[in-house]
């Protein structure tokens, strides 16, 4: 007897259609799975057998062949346990598919030996693909149900074990979960948690970070240990504009594929903040591995990627940052497949000014020998530094300054200004396709950001006296445009340009 159940496999961020076919014939007992299964899928045989028996069903001695079609797509992971078990039960006539005539139910889930269903990663992507295929509904582990309910137009049936799944199958599905209200979920984000108001002093750095976020510019912070770089970076997501529904779904999709979602928090409601350790490998940072998984850049999609101890990161890993920073996505190619993950992120890098960390510090002296200083400085070079628009000094503050500062602004206040600036940028950039000033390329920049005579003169003098490069000049103009947007000014003024100049890249300690 032959039976069929629909399911799906994860390929990158998309679900691709998989049909589970089970064929049971009277012949020498055997149980084989075909269709390029990986080790976990092969092990399904044991799990399915035990789960079926322990759930009170029979496992007759027949020859069983399970095919996971299409046959040339690699199948990975334990999520086919449930469809295989159901297909087998259907094929041995221990259950009849009932319910409504239109559409059919798909199944996804991992089985324990006792028949209990376990969650699987990537359910959001899978559910979306099932809906696109026109399937009516899906049987899922309860732990994944909330996530799947984010998808509209698909009936979601949460089941805890195999017996329940069979019951649902038999009656055609009842008690579907209500689709989740993404908008409400987003709005319900509780305040509290880190906030810019926690940071006393450092007004200049905060101002610069506001500019960075408004224009989606990348930032490099340089300062001695303990000056507050990490603290400030961690609060950056709080001044970024809130996630829209589409953005939240997009971020959730990536996190779901990476297996990072919690059962009771199926939707990512805050912008992500990722802070990998500097020993991270290139696949860990960019994504990859033998079966590609999203890397930190993708997990930081629409959020902040914070690279602390920036010069300590491996060069190979940093080199891989180019594509995400330029294109907002990262493509990982393997022999058989190629997967593209989104990676539109804001890069925030932090470093000490020198190996001992105290160069330029008020109280402590730097004890680094000259050649180490040069070595350290030489690690920051070239194309990656070109992508960083704002270079900030974060000095250690005197205790008096920390206490005497007036109450700092809250993140909400800053966020409101940032949102307005972003709106202005979108309105202006329009056709260029750039979402923010930082993404403007050189020709668009010249078209979109006009400098009057006074500004041009100032820029020329700066080019001359401060020894800027042409690229540095472009960056200065971009940042100046963002400052003007924050100000609500119709065009760039010399004051905006002058302020932008203060965030330029300085020469290294020697040979400035």
């Amino acid at each position: 007897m032959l039976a069929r159940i629909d399911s799906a496999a994860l390929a990158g961020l998309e679900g691709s259609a998989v049909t589970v076919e089970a064929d049971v014939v009277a012949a020498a007992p055997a149980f084989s799975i075909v269709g390029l299964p990986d080790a976990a899928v092969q092990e399904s045989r044991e799990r399915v057998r035990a789960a079926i028996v322990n759930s009170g069903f029979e496992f007759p001695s027949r020859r069983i062949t399970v095919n996971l079609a299409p046959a040339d797509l690699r199948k990975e992971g334990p999520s086919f346990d449930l469809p295989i078990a159901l297909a087998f039960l259907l094929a041995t006539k221990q259950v009849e598919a009932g319910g409504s005539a239109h559409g059919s139910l798909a199944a996804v889930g991992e089985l324990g030996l006792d028949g209990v269903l376990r969650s699987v990663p990537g359910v959001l992507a899978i559910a979306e693909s099932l809906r696109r295929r026109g399937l009516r509904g899906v049987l899922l582990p309860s732990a994944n149900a909330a996530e799947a309910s984010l998808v509209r137009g698909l009936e979601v049936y949460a089941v805890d074990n195999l017996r329940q799944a069979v019951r649902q199958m038999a009656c055609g599905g009842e008690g579907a979960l209500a689709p989740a209200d993404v908008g409400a979920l987003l709005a319900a984000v509780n305040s509290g948690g880190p906030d810019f108001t926690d940071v006393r002093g450092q007004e200049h750095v905060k101002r610069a970070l506001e500019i960075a976020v408004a224009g989606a510019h990348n930032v490099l912070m340089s300062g001695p240990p303990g000056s507050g770089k990490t603290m400030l970076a961690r609060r950056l997501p709080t001044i970024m504009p809130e996630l829209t529904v589409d953005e939240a779904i997009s971020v959730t999709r990536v996190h779901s594929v990476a297996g990072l979602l919690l059962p009771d928090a199926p939707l990512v409601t805050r912008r992500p903040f990722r802070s990998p350790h500097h020993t991270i490998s290139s696949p860990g940072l960019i994504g990859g591995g033998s079966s590609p998984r999203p890397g930190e850049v993708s997990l930081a999609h629409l959020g902040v990627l914070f690279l602390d101890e920036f010069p300590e990161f491996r060069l190979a890993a940093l080199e891989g940052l180019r594509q995400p920073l330029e294109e907002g996505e990262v493509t990982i190619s393997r022999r058989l497949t190629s997967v593209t993950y989104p990676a539109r992120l804001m890069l925030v890098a932090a470093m000490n000014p020198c190996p001992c960390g105290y160069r330029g510090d008020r109280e402590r002296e730097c004890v680094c020998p000259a050649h180490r200083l040069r070595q350290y400085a030489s690690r920051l070079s070239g194309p990656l530094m070109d992508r960083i628009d704002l270079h900030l000094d974060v000095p250690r503050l005197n205790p008096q300054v920390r206490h005497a500062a007036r109450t700092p602004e809250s993140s909400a206040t800053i966020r409101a200004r940032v949102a307005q600036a972003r709106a202005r940028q979108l309105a202006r950039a329009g056709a260029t396709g750039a979402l923010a000033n930082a993404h403007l390329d050189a020709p668009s920049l010249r078209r979109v950001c006009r400098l009057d005579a006074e500004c041009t003169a100032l820029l020329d003098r700066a080019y001359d006296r401060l020894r800027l490069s042409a690229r540095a000049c472009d960056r200065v103009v971009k940042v100046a445009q963002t400052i003007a947007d924050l100000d609500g000014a119709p065009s760039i003024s010399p004051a905006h340009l002058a302020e932008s100049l203060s965030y330029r890249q300085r020469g290294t300690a020697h040979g400035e």
Partner: protein
Amino acid sequence: MCVWLACLASYRQGLIGRLLRTYGDPDTLTFTDPARLRKAAAGASGRSGRPGASASSGGERVTREGGSSAHAQAPSCDAAAFGRVLHLPPLDCLRQPRPAGGRLVTWVDAEYPPGLRQLSDPPLCLFVRAHCTEEEFGARLRLLATRPTVAVVGSRAPSAYGEEMATLLGRDLTARGALVVSGLAMGIDALAQEAALSLPTPADGLATAAVLGCGADVVYPATNRRLFADVGGRGLLISEFAWGVPARAWRFPARNRVMAGLAQAVVVVEGSERSGARLTADFGLDLGREILAVPGEAGRRLSAAPHGLLRQGAALCESADDVLAALGPAAESLARLHARQPAKPGDAPSGDPRGSSSARVLAVLERGPLGADQITAQCALSAAAVSAALSELEIEGRVRRHDGGRFRLTHSASLP
């Protein structure tokens, strides 16, 4: 012969000096009985001669080199034996081909810098490089002897303040006619010499001179390649080590004594307690040169050398004027002969800064270097306005940024 001796025995604990004093002239040295030489060497250095050293009997015939620009050839004497008598290493260095623009100036030549003759163990032979014609070379050597010479030395990793002072001194001293000499090391040395080179030089003039701790064709450190070439083009690269000799730590003290010998005054800009700059000053003291020190911030590591010298009675140096005053009126008038126009006066800033915010920032900075946040707090301006004002002041050259994001007023507004 001088060349060979110089190669073999540079700075060998005064051995050469003693031999010269005993025998007066290098040539005489070679015609001396080896036994007497050995005794003299042993007596001088306190070691006993190697037993069984096979000295050739009788006098050794030597091919005498004539003239300062003669090509160095291996002498056809039993040099090896001679060397063994004095426990000197064998004669490999002379096989190096002479690099472009390289010339030899030996003890016996007229152009040998008189200042160096005062050293207790002077380099017998100087390997000098300059990319110029023979007449210009001669002219430059003469200028080396006649112009008042100042050695500007200091740390390889100076603070922003030290960098500024080095540049200031290098430029102003050269503009006023003095000759700046330094070691082409990173940091203070390089900055002072770059500043000296930034002024225009007449074709037969001497922009600056560099004394090296390695062969005059070896660029050390590699980052100074361009500076090296500039000094070769418009100044002199001097070394007592033969062509191709690599830089080693123990050669630098030797170089420092040559610098002190060439100069009439030594200015220490910044340096830690046991730095090479301090050593150069000590050599200068021994030679009776004027020692000056640029004061730094109290208690900082880099102020240790200059402040130590000040405690010992060195003169305070705040500008080129102090140096020239220390050199004395004769030197000053001599310097005036060579004085050149300083940098374009058009760089001088306008009298009043552009806006009230710039004025307020300047006023706050009068009290001392401050970070951007502190300036903001004291000025009661917004962070944005302060950043804008600081940028404009930086463009005008009135303010400079330290490492660590602190800003300070510059000493001389036309400094880049």
